[in-house]
C-alpha cells in the first residue's frame, strides 16, 4: 500500500498531491475521533487511578488531622519494599509461585491445542444444526459461576455421599487435584476459546479450500496449510496475552472448586488465593500488601508479554502485538 502511494505520488500533479495530503489528514482526523471515546475512557478509568500505585510502597493510613484521598497519600510514610516481602516469605510462598506458573503453562498449552482442534472439528461437521447445538452447549460452563460449579465437583468427591468417595479422601489428599483443576479449567474455557477460533475460521475464504481440493489436497493438508496459517495471528495473540497473565490465577477455580480445603494447599495454592488469605486475615497493613502484590503481578506480566512479543516480532513482525 505504501508502495502504491509512493508510485501514485510520483505521477501526481502538485495540486492533486495537496488534495491527497488533505485526504490523508482527514482520514487521520476521522480515525482519531473514533479512538477518542476509548482513549478518554482509558485515561479516566484506567490511568487516573494509577496514582494509587504509590500505596504499594507506603504504610498507608488515614491522615487523621485531614483525612481524605490526597491527605492520606501525602502523609503516609514510605516503607520501601516492605509490602512486597510477604510474596517471598518462606518456602510456602515459593511453592505458590511455582504452582501459579505451572498451572498457567499447562492451561496455555492445552487450551490452545484443544481449542483449535475442537474448532476445526466443529467447522467440519456438515450438519449446521449439530454444529450450532454443540457450540451452544459448549458455552454453558461460561454462564455458571465457579461457586455453583464447585458444588458439582463436590457431589462427586465429597466424603459421605460422593460418587467417587471410595477412591480416596479427595479433599484431604492433594494427589489428583492438578488433574481435577486442569479439567475444570478446560471445561470452563474451552467453549469460549473454541468459539473465537471458529469465528476466525469462519472468516476464511471458502474458495481457498475448494481450490486446494481441486488440486488434490487432503483434508488434513488443507487444515495444515490453509486453516492453521490463517488463524495463526489469532493463536499467537491469544497466547501472548495468556503469557502476560502467567502469574495471575483464576481465583474462583482455585478457591471455590477446592472448597478452600486446607490439606490441598500444597497442590492448589496460587498467587491470588495466597494474597486473598492475607487480605482477609485482619493483619495490620493487609491492604498495602494486596496493592503491592497486584503491582508485582503487573510487573511480571509486563516483562513476560514484552519478552513473548519480542520473540514473535523477531519471527514475524506481522503477528506481534505491537
Amino acid at each position, binding site marked *: 500500500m505504501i508502495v502504491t502511494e509512493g508510485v501514485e505520488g510520483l505521477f501526481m500533479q502538485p495540486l492533486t498531491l495537496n488534495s491527497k495530503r488533505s485526504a490523508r489528514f482527514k482520514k487521520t482526523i476521522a480515525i482519531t475521533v473514533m479512538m477518542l*471515546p476509548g482513549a478518554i475512557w482509558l485515561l479516566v478509568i484506567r490511568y487516573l487511578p494509577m496514582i494509587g500505585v504509590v500505596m504499594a510502597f507506603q504504610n498507608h493510613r488515614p491522615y487523621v488531622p485531614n483525612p481524605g484521598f490526597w491527605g492520606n497519600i501525602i502523609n503516609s510514610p514510605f516503607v520501601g519494599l516492605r509490602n512486597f516481602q510477604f510474596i517471598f516469605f518462606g518456602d510456602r510462598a515459593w511453592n505458590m509461585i511455582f504452582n501459579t506458573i505451572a498451572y498457567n503453562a499447562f492451561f496455555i498449552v492445552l487450551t490452545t491445542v484443544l481449542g483449535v482442534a475442537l474448532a476445526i472439528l466443529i467447522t467440519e461437521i456438515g450438519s449446521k444444526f449439530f454444529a450450532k447445538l454443540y457450540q451452544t452447549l459448549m458455552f454453558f460452563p461460561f454462564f455458571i459461576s465457579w461457586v455453583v460449579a464447585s458444588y458439582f465437583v463436590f457431589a462427586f468427591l465429597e466424603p459421605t455421599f460422593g460418587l467417587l468417595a471410595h477412591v480416596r479422601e479427595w479433599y484431604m489428599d492433594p494427589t489428583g487435584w492438578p488433574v481435577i483443576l486442569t479439567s475444570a479449567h478446560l471445561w470452563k474455557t474451552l467453549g469460549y476459546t473454541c468459539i473465537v477460533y471458529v469465528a476466525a475460521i469462519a472468516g476464511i475464504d471458502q474458495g481457498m479450500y475448494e481450490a486446494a481440493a481441486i488440486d488434490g489436497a487432503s483434508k488434513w493438508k488443507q487444515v495444515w496449510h490453509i486453516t492453521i496459517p490463517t488463524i495463526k495471528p489469532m493463536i499467537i495473540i491469544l497466547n501472548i496475552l495468556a503469557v502476560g497473565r502467567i502469574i495471575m490465577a483464576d481465583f474462583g477455580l482455585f478457591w471455590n472448586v477446592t472448597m478452600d480445603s486446607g490439606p490441598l494447599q500444597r497442590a492448589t495454592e496460587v498467587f491470588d488465593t495466597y494474597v486473598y488469605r492475607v487480605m482477609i486475615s485482619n493483619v495490620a497493613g493487609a491492604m498495602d500488601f494486596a496493592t503491592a502484590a497486584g503491582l508485582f503481578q503487573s510487573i511480571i506480566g509486563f516483562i513476560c508479554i514484552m519478552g513473548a512479543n519480542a520473540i514473535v516480532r523477531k519471527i514475524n513482525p506481522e503477528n506481534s502485538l505491537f
Partner: protein
Amino acid sequence: MAGRKKFRINKVSRASEALFHVIVGGFALICIIPFVFIIIIAFTGAESLRTIGYSFFPAEVTMVNFNAAFELGDQLWRSFYNSIFITFIGTFLSLLIAIMYAYGLYRTGYPLKKFFTILMFFTMLFGGGLVPFVIVIRNLLNLGDTIWAMIVPMLMAPFNVIILRTFYKTCIPESLLDAANIDGCGEFRTLFSIVVPLAKPGIATIGLLTAIGFWNDWWHALLFVRDRSLIPLQFLLMEMQRNMEFIRRNITMIGAENINFADLPTQGLRMALAVIIVVPIAFAYPFFQRYIISGMTIGAVKE
C-alpha cells in the same frame, strides 16, 4: 452449481464425521451435565439433601426453592430488570467503542496507531488498585448509587479490542478499504458499511463475551451501589454466597446464637437462583451465534 458440488466433495468421510460427532458431542455433553445437575438440586428438597446429599436422583422433588426465590418478589424483578438494562446498554456502548478503537489499531497508514495500541495495552497489565479506582468513579465522575456505576467501569475491555483487531486483520483485506477510500468513502462510512458487516462473526463473539461480562458482574454493584432498587440479579446470589462463607470463616467468633439459621438461604434456594440467572443469558446466546455462524457462509458469498 459447480461450486456447490465441489463444496460437497470437499468434505470429510462419513466415518470421520461420525467420529467428530462423538468427540465434539461428548465434550458438549460434559459441558451441559453440571447445569442439568444444578437444575436437579434446585428441585431437591432439604430433607433429601441431608439424607443422601447431592444426587442426580433426589429422594424428594419440590418447587419449594423456586417458590422461595419468587418470594423475594419485587426485589427479584427489579434486579432482573436492572441486569437486563445494564447488559443491553453496556454491551451496545462497549461494542461501539471496541469497533471504533479496534479499527484504528488495524488501519495501516494511521500515524497514531502505535500510540493508541500502547495506551490501551499498558492498562491490561497495570492497574492502580482498588482505592483510587473507587474514588474516580464515585467522587470524580459522581456515579455512586447510579446504574451507570455498573456500566461505565466495564465499557472497554482491552482484551476484546485486541481480539477484534485481530479479526479485522484476518478477515478483511485492507485493499478493500483503500478501494472504498478512493471511491470517496469516508472512514466512518468505510467502518460501518464495509468493515462491520464483514467482521460480524468477530463482533458477535466479543459481543457475547461482553454481554456475559455485564450479566455476571456483581463486583461493581458491591463497590458503588447501596440503593437496593439498583442492584443486579447476580448480586443477590453473591450476597447469599458471601453470607454463607463469612459465617463459615467466623463461626468461632460470632457464635451460633447470633445467627438465625432459619434466615440463611438453603442450598436449594441458591441453586434455584443460579438457574434463574443462567436462563435469560443462555437465551441470548443463539442471537449472537447466528452471526458467528453466518460468517461461515460469507466465504461462499464472496466467491
